[in-house]
Structure formats: structure tokens, C-alpha cells
């Protein structure tokens, strides 16, 4: 399990307007590129000083490739990162204000406390 890396993906995509659009249009290609090129970048270090050990599990990779926020929630992705990025990806497709946010809640409606652990 690599919750930290899932969170790192959500974090680095969410903060970059070009990557938000790229992930919306081509989730499979974006996840493949990111895991190959970006996953091991230490954010405060230059490119030559990288980690060597970070990769997604198969369920994490599949959930990211399919924009499956319900599964990402269930895998313990950080709730704030998940919500913020997915609002950026899909709120625009809904006519009513907050309609996407409410659908997001409804699709998690089978969950009761305790929620999946977000600790990293």
C-alpha cells in the first residue's frame, strides 16, 4: 500500500493547471507518465537526487487511471486532496452549483464511521 504516493499524485496534479487538464483528458496516459517520471521526485530536491522506491499498487493505479474517487477514498487517499482535485476535474460538467459535490457524497453514502484511515 502506498497511500503517500497516491496523495503525492493528487497533490502535484491539483496544484498545476496544465496537469489538471491533462489528467481530465487522458487519465491513463497521465498516470503512466507521472509514475515513470514524477513519482520519485523529491519535491524540494533537484532532479538528480531522487527516491528510488516509490510505485503504485495495482488497485491504486487502476483507481487513478479510471478517476475512481470512491475506490481512492476506500484506499485511504486524503479526503481533502481527493475532493479538491475532483472538483477541479468534474464540477464544470454539472449545471447546478454543488451538484458534483453532492453526487460525490452520495456515491460514498454506503460509508459509515470509521472511514478508511488516511494516516501516511
Amino acid at each position, binding site marked *: 500500500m502506498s497511500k503517500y504516493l497516491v*496523495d503525492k499524485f493528487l497533490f502535484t496534479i491539483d*496544484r*498545476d*493547471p496544465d496537469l489538471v487538464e491533462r489528467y481530465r483528458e487522458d487519465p491513463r496516459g497521465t498516470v503512466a507518465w507521472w509514475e515513470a517520471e514524477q513519482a520519485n521526485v523529491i519535491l524540494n530536491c533537484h532532479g538528480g537526487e531522487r527516491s528510488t522506491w516509490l510505485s503504485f499498487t495495482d488497485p491504486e493505479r487502476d483507481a487513478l487511471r479510471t478517476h475512481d474517487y470512491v475506490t481512492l477514498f476506500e484506499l485511504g487517499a486524503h479526503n481533502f486532496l481527493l475532493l479538491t482535485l475532483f*472538483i477541479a476535474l468534474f464540477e464544470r460538467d454539472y449545471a447546478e452549483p454543488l451538484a458534483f459535490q453532492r453526487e460525490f*457524497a452520495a456515491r460514498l453514502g454506503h460509508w459509515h464511521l470509521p*472511514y478508511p484511515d488516511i494516516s501516511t
Partner: protein
Amino acid sequence: MATIAAIIASTHHPFYLRASTATGDERPPFADEWAAKIEAFRETLTRARPDVLVMVGSDHFHQLWLDNMPQFLVGKAPFYDANYYNEEREFGLPKMKLRGDEDLSAHLLRGGIDAGFDLAFSNELRVDHSITCPIITLRPQADLPIVPVYTNIFAPPMPQPKRFVELGQAIRALVESWPSDQRVAIIGTGHLSLELGGPRQFGPHGPDPEFDRKAVAWIGSSDLDAALAEVSLDSLWQPGNATHGFMDFLLMMGVAGKNVKADYADSLDLFHTMEAYFTWYPGGAS
């Protein structure tokens, strides 16, 4: 020594700016009441005539990240740029730039570390909406220097609730011992019950109105015994999965002092979360 002009504890709602400036069909039905409450709350700071603002908030995974996460961090810089692309995108928050007060930052860092808080510091900090929301609501001219104090209410493992109270008590004592003739307002924002990225999010009220009712009573009377008896790192998941932001209210209750009743208290039941506003005047109302 410095004077504490006011102590202010508030929720921060990033949608306030957009709601309060919307016109015509875009203006939500609750905007007028909300703006009136904010303007009354703003007056409680204005009348205190502050010179400098200590701003307690929490970075929302903007500059602080899981590879290097401080529990408590004090900014020490001459300027703070503010707000991020994703806050402009989601909330319509503008880019801002705030002046810093490095002398007060240095005093809080030295004294805080010596008092047993191993505070992290930052000499280049871009602050986010936990700082800029109360600037927008309480001091929209953004003309006063600030000292940002960031807490981790976001990424487990977090400090215990009582540690937030203790830090608030320490900040109060340190500001009072700052060799300066400045009038300091200490402002902190957090949350009542709140759910983000979960099944209870964006309902017609906060996810746990009963918690909100109790929390507003605890804060208004700074009833630290009652709050700490009921609140733990584990229990705060129950009212909503982002309710650990209540610990910033606990910090501000520590600043205000145990069982010191707020001189001003107001609240507003909004969609998604309850808003709550409190002001104390330690030297009496100015």
C-alpha cells in the same frame, strides 16, 4: 510591553468573498445576512485599533507537504505572498501580499522554543486561505503586518488537543512580554463540524449540529475543561472528517484564557458548515 488589543476566534469560509460580492441571480439568498454579520464582526477588530496581527491558521497542503510536515510553524519573513492557484480556481480568491513583522516573529520563535515548543520556522512562506479569509472578513484593506502561525490539523499524526491549548497560552504570554509599544490582535481560525471528501459533505447544515451547538458554547465561555473532556484526536472524526480544525479554536481558547467569556459572540447556520465568530478584549472593551 505590547498590548493585546483583541483576541479573535472565527471559522474561515472560503466562499465568503464570492458570496458577498455576487450580484443579481448569482447572489445566494443567505449573502445579505452573512455580510451583515461579517461587517459587525469586523467592527470588533476595527475598534480595537490593532497595529499588528498574529494570524493562527493551517496550511491546506499548499506549501507544507507530507515529505516534511511541521506540527507548529511560525513564519518569519518581511512579506507573505498569499493564495494559491487552486484557491483562485475553486473559491475565486485573489492573489494577495501581506507585510510581515519579523521582530514579533523572532520573539515568538525564541520564546516559544525556550518554553518547550520546538517550533518550525519559515523565511519564505506563501500563506493560504486560512490566513487570507480572516483578512478578507476582518481587515479587507490588508494593511497591517502579520505573523503567521501554522498548525497541523490536517495530516495524522497530529498534536494532542491539549497541546493546542498550551501553545495558545504560550502565545498569549509571549505577546504580552514582547518589548514593544504595539497593539497586537491575535486572530485564529478553525472549523466546527466539517466534512470534506466524505459522505456527509455539503449538506444543508454542518454534518453535526449537536457538536456545533456544544462547541459554540465551549468557545463563547472558553470552557476548556468541558471541551477537553469531550474532545480527543479520535473523537474529532465523529462530527465530520475535517473537524480537527476545531483544535485551532482550542488554541484560541488558550489565548483567551480558561473560563473567560467572549465579549462578542455570533454564529450563522449555513449550508455545509456553521459559521461562528468570537472576540475578547483582555484590557476591557476599547
